[in-house]
């Protein structure tokens, strides 16, 4: 699957200097990404979001070091700010958790999607508008012409997240980093939004890094999974094999979920081993 990895991450570290000492948010993470859906799961504070952000150089105040951080042959750590601007949003884009906070509240939806397209191409305003409407249709928004003129507060959460996907897909990036893209949505809407994302990336051969705390969702949605804890990768396996994971941390996380198929008196509690950190 990763014969020609688009993204190579080797020994990635992200550290923050705080008054109480150095925080190692990401501590030696390595993986490769091809045209696939890679899930990164872990609890809050495990470093999964920081890993995604470090790829795009979005760790404000943090220090990023890596043995290798390479996207299509470009060294992301030493790339100029100009190159990084072309990559961000153009070649690698990011979908964030809550559309309420990540869409610009004072710009119409149409203008925001168009902006994402125009910045990364030489298209005219008319072409951009036509592409935007097309994109809104592709994420199954009814009445795209009407939605084009609305503001983010006028649409529902599920619609807002589909708009985010449209905006991130319109420059046709090679990689999408989705950081908890559907955690703020109801289960059925969540799956519908993921289906749209899934269809689009499959058709275009986009690589996806899917960051989530939801093990069942990642196991059923992704091809491959990295399990993170305390800034480190505990385990890498194929998503279908997650239920048979070896690492006690992964096992512990899976076991402490309440089950729908059988009742238990008490949920097994995760026992943390200091040697994992």
């Amino acid at each position, binding site marked *: 699957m990763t014969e020609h990895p688009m993204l190579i991450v080797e020994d990635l570290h992200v550290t923050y200097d705080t008054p109480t000492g150095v925080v190692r948010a990401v501590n030696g993470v390595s993986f490769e990404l091809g045209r696939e859906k890679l899930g990164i799961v872990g*609890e*809050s504070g495990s470093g999964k979001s920081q890993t995604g952000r470090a790829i795009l150089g979005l760790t404000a105040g943090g220090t990023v070091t890596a043995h290798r951080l390479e996207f299509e042959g470009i060294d992301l750590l030493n790339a100029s700010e100009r190159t990084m601007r072309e990559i961000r949003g153009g070649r690698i884009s990011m979908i964030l958790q809550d559309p309420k906070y990540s869409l610009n509240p004072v710009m119409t939806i149409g203008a925001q999607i168009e902006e994402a397209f125009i910045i990364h191409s030489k298209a005219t305003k008319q072409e951009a508008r036509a592409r935007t409407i097309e994109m809104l249709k592709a994420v199954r928004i009814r009445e795209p012409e009407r939605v084009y003129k609305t503001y983010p507060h006028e649409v529902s*959460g599920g619609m807002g997240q589909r708009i985010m996907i449209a905006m991130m897909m319109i420059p046709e990036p090679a990689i999408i980093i989705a950081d908890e893209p559907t955690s703020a949505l*109801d*289960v*059925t*809407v*969540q*799956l*519908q939004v*993921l*289906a749209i994302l*899934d269809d689009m990336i499959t058709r275009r051969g986009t690589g996806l890094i899917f960051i989530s*705390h939801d*093990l*069942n*969702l990642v*196991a*059923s*949605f992704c091809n491959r999974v990295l399990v993170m804890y305390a800034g480190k990768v505990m385990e890498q396996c194929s998503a279908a094999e997650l239920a048979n994971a070896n690492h006690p941390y992964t096992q*512990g*996380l899976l076991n*402490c*979920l*309440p*089950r*729908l*198929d*059988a*009742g*238990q*008196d*008490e*949920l*097994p*509690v*995760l026992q943390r081993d200091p040697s994992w950190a």
Partner: protein
Amino acid sequence: MPDRTSCRFCNAIPVGLEISDTLVIEVQDLNVVFGRGARSFHAVRDVSFGVDRGQSFGLVGESGSGKTTVLRAIAGLLGNVAHVTGAMKVADEELKQNRSRPFRRRVQMVFQDPYGSLHPRHTVDAILSEPARVHQLDRIKDRVVKALEEVGLDASFRFRYPHQISGGQRQRVSVARALIIEPDIVLLDEPTSALDVSVQAEVLNLLMRLKREHRLTYVLVSHNLAVVAHMCETLSVMQNGAVVETMTVEQLRSHNPTQPYTKQLLTASLGYDRAAIDAFEEFDSK
């Protein structure tokens, strides 16, 4: 054979027999409307249910289905903006506009967000002492220490502020705050949805243990079917303010709901299945 659980001479109920067959929560045709006239919003429509003493009852639904509003209507937290009709009998009291002090002593609520529901400038000690003082209890310090102990926190937490403790510990403090005045009914509004799964397991185990030890009655609101299945004996599925279906947990576990909406919710809870998603229907029509 006479159907009698109480003593025939003095009507006292023998210890251990009083737990079942006694409805402590009865809600009949509850309707809640926010606002007036053309801009009004009918949030809860003809909801009825009953909960026996010592049982847990779950309300499941997606956001906007009205599940939290039902809980707030029972607790009397809707204020003047909402028009509430229907009959509620909770903890041997017919509920009217205002809740009595004995009611507030017997019925407590735990809120969803442990980050938002604890006063940021009050210590844990102040947070826990306040309800005890409101209800004019004695030995407040002992009660605070005991309440902390019950939720698995030691006395060293007493003089910390909410921002100095983790999310799971905060939710334990919220539970302690509800239990310090020894209620017998606890209303739980998404008590673990802001927590990591490992911490969720700890808090759910804690709630189950406290329920056993204190014979509590729970009404649990959650969007998570698995959490409700773990905690409750019966549940109602809500959508658009109305109850779609009421069933036992066994029915849910055997994947045997009768309503299409419940079936879809159950399918969606099992994870990503591309083919199943195409078959999803819209249930939004009102």
